[in-house]
């Protein structure tokens, strides 16, 4: 008749199914794979550009394939989710105290979104979109 504490194991590969918040977390983490893959794609693009007009044309042709379009859609969605969750998180890491009060977190995150939009528009402008 004595103590025998019960240990409940955490399932190492399926713990994130226990609650929607963990699935959202894993989705956020998985987005980095797409972000990383797109970076690799950009490096490949540079390499193809340096290899001459034929290589470049072939690369552009490849971008138009069905697989490529699907990948780009997924990568765009992932990047948006990645950016959104990151911007929403920044307010936690950088509290701004003014006197006795704190700048509302939404203002800090909101500022990130604004900067993001401005930079995106600038890039599109320099790319000649408008």
């Amino acid at each position, binding site marked *: *008749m*004595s*103590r*025998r504490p019960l240990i409940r194991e955490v399932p190492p590969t399926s713990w994130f199914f226990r609650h929607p918040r963990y699935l959202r977390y894993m989705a956020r983490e998985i987005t980095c794979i797409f972000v990383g893959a797109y970076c690799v794609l950009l490096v490949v693009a540079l390499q193809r550009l340096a290899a001459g007009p034929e290589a470049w044309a072939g690369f552009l042709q490849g971008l138009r394939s069905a697989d490529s379009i699907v990948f780009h859609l997924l990568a765009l969605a992932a990047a948006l989710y990645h950016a959104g969750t990151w911007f929403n998180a920044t307010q936690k890491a950088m509290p701004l105290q003014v006197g006795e009060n704190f700048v509302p977190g939404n203002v800090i995150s909101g500022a990130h979104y604004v900067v993001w939009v401005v930079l995106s528009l600038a890039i599109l402008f320099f790319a000649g979109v408008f």
Partner: protein
Amino acid sequence: MDTIRTDVAIIGAGGAGLRAAIALAQTDPTLRIALISKVYPMRSHTCAAEGGAAGVIKPDDSFDLHFDDTVGGGDWLSDQDCVEYFIHEAPKELLQLEHWGCPWNREADGSVAVRPFGGMKKKRTWFAADKSGFHILHTLFQTSLQFPSITRHDEYYALDLLVDDGRCQGLTAMEMRSGELRQFHAKAVIICGGGAGRMFPFSTNGAIKTGDGMAMAYRAGAPLKDMEFVQYHPTGLPNTGSLLTEACRGEGGILVNKNGRRYLQDYGMGPETPVGQPQLKTMELGPRDRVSQAYWHELQKGNTVTTQWGECVLLDMRHLGEKKINERLPLVRELAEAYLGVDIVKEAVPIRPVVHYMMGGISTNTAAATPLPGLFAAGECACVSLNGANRLGSNSLVELLVFGRRAALSAIEHIQGLPAPDAAALGACADATQKRIDTLYARTDGTESMSGLRREMMDTMEKNVGIYRTEAGLQEGVAKIHELRQRYGRVILTDKSKVFNTDLFQVLELGSMLDCAEAVTVGALARRESRGAHQRLDYVDRDDRNFLRHTMVYHQGLDAPRVDYLDVVITKSPPGVRDYSGDHK
């Protein structure tokens, strides 16, 4: 039974126990300190105190004023030498807490802020939002972690004191997680086990407030003093009994009856002060006993508001505004919203008086020493007597600190030159505990349900020992509690296992509460006067000639306790009139 050897054992790790432990560790780092509690220290009921802690610190205040407020508030039953000591130590203790990191609210210039509180002539209540007790407890607990000489025994249920050679030299306790009994051999024991408000069905008290420390001392021969003085806090939630701090009124909240009338002015606390501009020591800032008693009178007159939870009055804080409420009363707002569905910013909240604090307890002198050598006590479980017949709000949190420390210093004095405890003699005493527990486990012919007895005790206390008492009611109460104590001898322990057996703990707690309840009822019956929180419909006046004395109740086993009296120490304030009208000087 395993033995743990230590120098000083402290029972209870709330504000008083932790303060005592730190004082011991700081004064003599070579001392072995055993800090024993039936809960982890952060769970101690100190955490639920909200309003603040009083100490003279501002230039417009004086020790004389704090003295007068406390002695008058206690209806002249406080021992004035004790009050004198207390008021001088209070600001030092609060400053010590500040140095240890307590997040006291501040003025704009960075000095500590104080707020008005009931029964106090000047603003002197230090506060940390409306979670002062919480912050005090956590500051003390976290500070205690740096002292290696404090050995904590968390979740140990203290059972009996060990007495040998006329001195208290330890205790027995059960390690709750294993059910194993242990004996602690010490040269001094400090009890900081808290009050026993759970003997009533409706209180602000948490589940753990069952008077175990009081009962242990009582059974070991130390008298319980002034137990009949039970404080009703005027503003508790009508369904859960949760505390809405006095600071609600300190910040300007008003009490109205069903007709919208601020009824306190009809009971000697008028004239009516402007809404939102509370005047110290009058109207809603009158002392707790008077404010709670006013509710009872309104109830008799039919002026209370009928709600689904019973008869209430209304606490209106709407005029304070959302900003002030969020800054100073955030917990109150949360509690009312969560448990009652009332937003105090928009509506008046229904409240009623609830049992909150016991002025009485283990009798000690100003040095926190009980009549049993080697046994000390501090906090709500003790009766020094600082609070007399009625405690002023915000004196209790400081009481923990002042007398927790004092008990430690007294314990150190006591143990100088003492020989180590006689292990064999104490071991023999400890057998009594073993027998007590074995009997419960072995009993097969029990007839009494634990929860049934508990319900009967609570109903008896509510009915017979309430805000207003009568001879007939008290006699019925005394007889009933006496009967329950006898029937407790046949209580059933349903759960016979050893590991964390809360059925056992509740059975033991019931025993403690019944012992304390007997002291309360017997003391109340014997005191044929009205004073402070003890009000009798058949003896409505204060009787200084016969009762300017403390009630002392002595345990006599299963027989009725013996009642004796001890004179109150009067030094510079002879009994006067308690004047809480707006015209008082």
